[in-house]
């Protein structure tokens, strides 16, 4: 039976952060997840916090941390070093991020022609963060025949007075649909296939030329920037981005699309690569179905496998199974919300009450803040603050109660800070042992 210093369950930003921090510290760590996580759905940016009237991220974090029930109440000290650390890792993997927690939160365009607040974005989206100078134009440019990016609709949305929250937006917003080689013939092309096309040097050379021509014909010259769908390469992204920036007359930035999210995939792949490089193990595809407990302590974690359960012995379990979207919290027909792995106490509004409210209702939905409450070291506790569940468990990411990530835009900050902190709670007893054996052999046996 394989053993590990720690097992992390969940491959979202929280689980990846915890795993990477542990692997870097020399621990033998296994990340187990049943499937891809919110990185594959989300924007690829790092949402740390944004609130109305808070100018900077730091200000918003401070306000959230004032609420003793918010995860930032225990994470706000860990947050700056954790962010610094993860950005260093991403930079090292060729995926630099731009913006800081002291920078302003600004409206950046989305692919339905609205804006979302952002402050820390991957380099490919960074041009959207700079304030708009008087006279600057925005060209919303997308390939004809691609059905997840509609320049006319986006431009129309971005021309609304409210879209930029009353601050100065671009002086003009123009749509530009460009026929890129072969795109219209390939019906039902998705974002990943388009990103793959951009990785072919010859194809993208022609594509950038076509965009340049269309800009000239349309009379859409500078100064200004251009909003492109987020498909500028996947593996070879840095090269594609560099070429786009040098070949296009307007500074390009990517706009995230409907899933699958190419920027999110890049983020996931970069962190996964860093984990593997640091000696951690990642196994995705099967659900963890059982946590073995002996004498009140976690002793093993069992994953579904083809023939029989695949079991890893460990005394440290980091739960980063996400909230309702991730599968860490499961709704039941009786109107209760439960944590399926250890049946930890869930902090949630009264049973059934959530069924009465629209998810998009102004002011949010009562279920948003649901989750597991923890102590300052991320150990699960019950409603009265007493330890809950077996010893050796840490809770990370969107599974933590008290955050409303869609209104507070704090999901990624909470994930990185809690993952980093949970990993720090582990002190490897001995220096790094040899790399763990192949998991595949275990599953088959």
């Amino acid at each position, binding site marked *: 039976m394989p053993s590990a210093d720690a097992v992390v369950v969940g491959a979202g930003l929280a689980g990846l952060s915890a795993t990477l921090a542990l692997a870097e510290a020399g621990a033998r760590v296994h990340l187990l997840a049943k499937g891809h996580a919110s990185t594959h759905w989300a924007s690829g940016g790092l949402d740390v916090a944004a609130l109305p009237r808070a100018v900077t991220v730091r200000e918003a974090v401070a306000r959230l941390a004032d609420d003793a029930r918010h995860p930032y109440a225990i994470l706000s000290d860990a947050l700056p070093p954790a962010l610094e650390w993860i950005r260093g890792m991403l930079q090292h993997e060729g995926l630099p991020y731009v913006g800081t927690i002291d920078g302003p939160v600004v409206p950046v365009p989305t692919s*339905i022609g609205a804006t979302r607040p952002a402050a820390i974005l991957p380099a490919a989206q960074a041009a959207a963060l700079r304030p708009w100078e008087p006279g600057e134009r925005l060209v919303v440019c997308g390939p004809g025949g691609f059905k997840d990016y509609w320049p006319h609709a986006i431009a129309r949305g971005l021309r609304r007075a409210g*879209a930029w929250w*009353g601050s100065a937006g671009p002086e003009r917003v123009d749509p530009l649909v460009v026929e890129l080689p072969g795109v219209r013939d390939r019906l039902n092309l998705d974002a990943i296939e388009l990103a793959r096309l951009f990785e072919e040097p010859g194809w993208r050379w022609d594509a950038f030329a076509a965009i340049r021509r269309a800009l000239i014909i349309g009379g859409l010259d500078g100064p200004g920037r251009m909003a492109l769908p987020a498909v500028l390469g996947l593996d070879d992204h840095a090269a594609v981005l560099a070429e786009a920036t040098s070949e296009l007359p307007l500074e390009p930035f990517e706009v995230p699309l409907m899933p699958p999210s190419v920027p999110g995939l890049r983020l996931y792949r970069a962190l996964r690569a860093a984990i593997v490089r640091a000696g951690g193990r990642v196994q995705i595809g099967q659900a963890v179905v059982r946590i073995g407990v002996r004498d009140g302590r976690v002793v093993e974690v069992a994953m579904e496998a083809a023939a029989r359960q695949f079991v890893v012995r460990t005394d440290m379990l980091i739960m980063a199974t996400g909230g309702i979207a991730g599968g860490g919290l499961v709704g039941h027909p009786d109107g209760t919300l439960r944590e399926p792995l250890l049946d930890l106490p869930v902090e949630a509004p009264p049973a059934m009450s959530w069924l009465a409210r629209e998810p998009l209702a102004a002011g949010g939905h009562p279920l948003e803040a649901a989750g597991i409450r923890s102590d300052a070291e991320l150990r699960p506790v019950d409603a009265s603050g007493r330890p809950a569940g077996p010893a050796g468990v840490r809770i990370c990411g969107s599974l933590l109660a008290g955050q409303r990530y869609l209104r507070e835009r704090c999901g990624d900050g909470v994930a990185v800070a809690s993952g980093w902190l949970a990993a720090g709670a582990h002190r490897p007893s001995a220096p790094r042992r040899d790399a763990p054996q192949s998991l595949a052999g275990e599953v088959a046996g």
Partner: protein
Amino acid sequence: MGERMLTPDVLVIGGGATGAGLLRDLARRGLRCLLVDRSDFGTGTSGRYHGLLHSGGRYVSKDPSAARECIVENQVLRRIAAGCIEDTGGIFVATPDDPDDYVDAFPGACAAAGIDCDEIPVTETLRREPALSPAIRRAFRVPDAALEPWQLIEANLADARAHGADAWPYQRVVAIQRDGRRISGVTVRDERSGASTRVVPRMIASAAGAWAGQVAALAGVELMMSPGKGTMIVYNQRMTDTVVNRCHPPGDGDIMVPVHTVAILGTTEELVEDPDDDETSSDEVQALINEGEALFPALRRMRVLRAYTGVRPLYRDPAVQGPEASDDGRAISRSHIILDHEARDGVEGLISIVGGKLTTYRLMAEQAANAVCAKLGMSEPCTTAGEPLPGMGDSRAHWLGHRLAEHEDRGGGDADLICECEMVTRAMLERFLDRRGPCSIDDIRRGTRLGMGPCQGGFCTFRAAAIMAERAPDGHTDRAAPGGSASDPEGALSTFLNERSKGTRAVAWGRQLQELWMVTGIYVGVMGLEGSSSEHGGEATEDHGAVS
């Protein structure tokens, strides 16, 4: 709206199946008619029903004459509306709990009503429908089918228009004027602009379904409806390709209807005061599933997409049953009745057609049209049973793979799929928008089935919103349907998503809750819909002074 018909021979109130069928019938008899609906066509009970073209089998023991009407109309609709029908066939199965005497009498009762009914061996039934309970004891095949309401309504309206009639959506009848005993005019209000129009018809035919009582009251006539609310739940898969009925006296949760890519279990029945009461409670949903398990034991493990309710236009005849006669909706007749308010209440120029089933909409329309013609001194015969509806293609009944086959026949062509679940292509959407003009995403849903499949609009709605926006000329603000417009795709999206979630709330557990959360995350989080961006917007606008 171009030239408006303000002095029609007949004003039809209500654009459900009955009203649309009536408009067609009257127009074909040479009358100048106008139909108004307070909302889009087919948003009343006709758009919120179970989807079953009855063979009549359900009514054979309790109401043989209703059963006979069903089988006759069933055969008529297969001829005139083949394109709206998926010929799934139906079976009645007896579970161990169903009374022997009922089951034994069933085939004979079908025969007496003129319904083809063959007993099929249980083993064969289970081979064809493996998700059925292995405990079933007997099975009978009947000619049930699935019937698509919106296309049916559109086709009736199209034929009526071809015969000179007009139909206005979003025009609510708000007042009916009388000059003594006689109706002298009708005020309709445009639900989008608020503008009022006066229509002066020779006759009014109210086909307002469960709202017929409200309409009659406007004319000072007392008409007591007993709206019967029924809940249905939609599964994300067709666990059966055949309509499955339980062979017992009609009850709750005893019919499963396969519809396109999904299957619908229904129904419950509860008498309500207000026909606009469309709340779905999770208790009702649980009760339905409990009952449905007798037919499909694995039901609880299958994924529910949404629940919805419809309100039956039940009429309580005061002569037959006193107002407090029964609280059991199922005891009230499913037959229809035409009320001549001149004979009944002394008010001239108004009839109401109430009760009935969607299956018998054409017959109801025929009888109502006969009554109207008699009042107007005409004797033109009804022609709606003989002439196929327009746009029904060849009379080959519609089947699930139909759209896919059509799509492939055209060699893929320019057919980008906008809604992958329901195979709605861009061309189909554009054709709909050409015909319809300004409308909401919900109208598109009814017109094309976009967003009705397993993902429930999570991924295709924004494409539809974008296509609407692309079509609207720049800088143009249209007067659109309430709940979204081309110049405000964002508003259209949030209206649509909130509307859809109304149906998913009561079934929001397990995978469905997870998906609801995911879709909310995508639209609010990634796309900046409503939620925080508008919050920020609000704040910033305050700080920077008013922006108009």
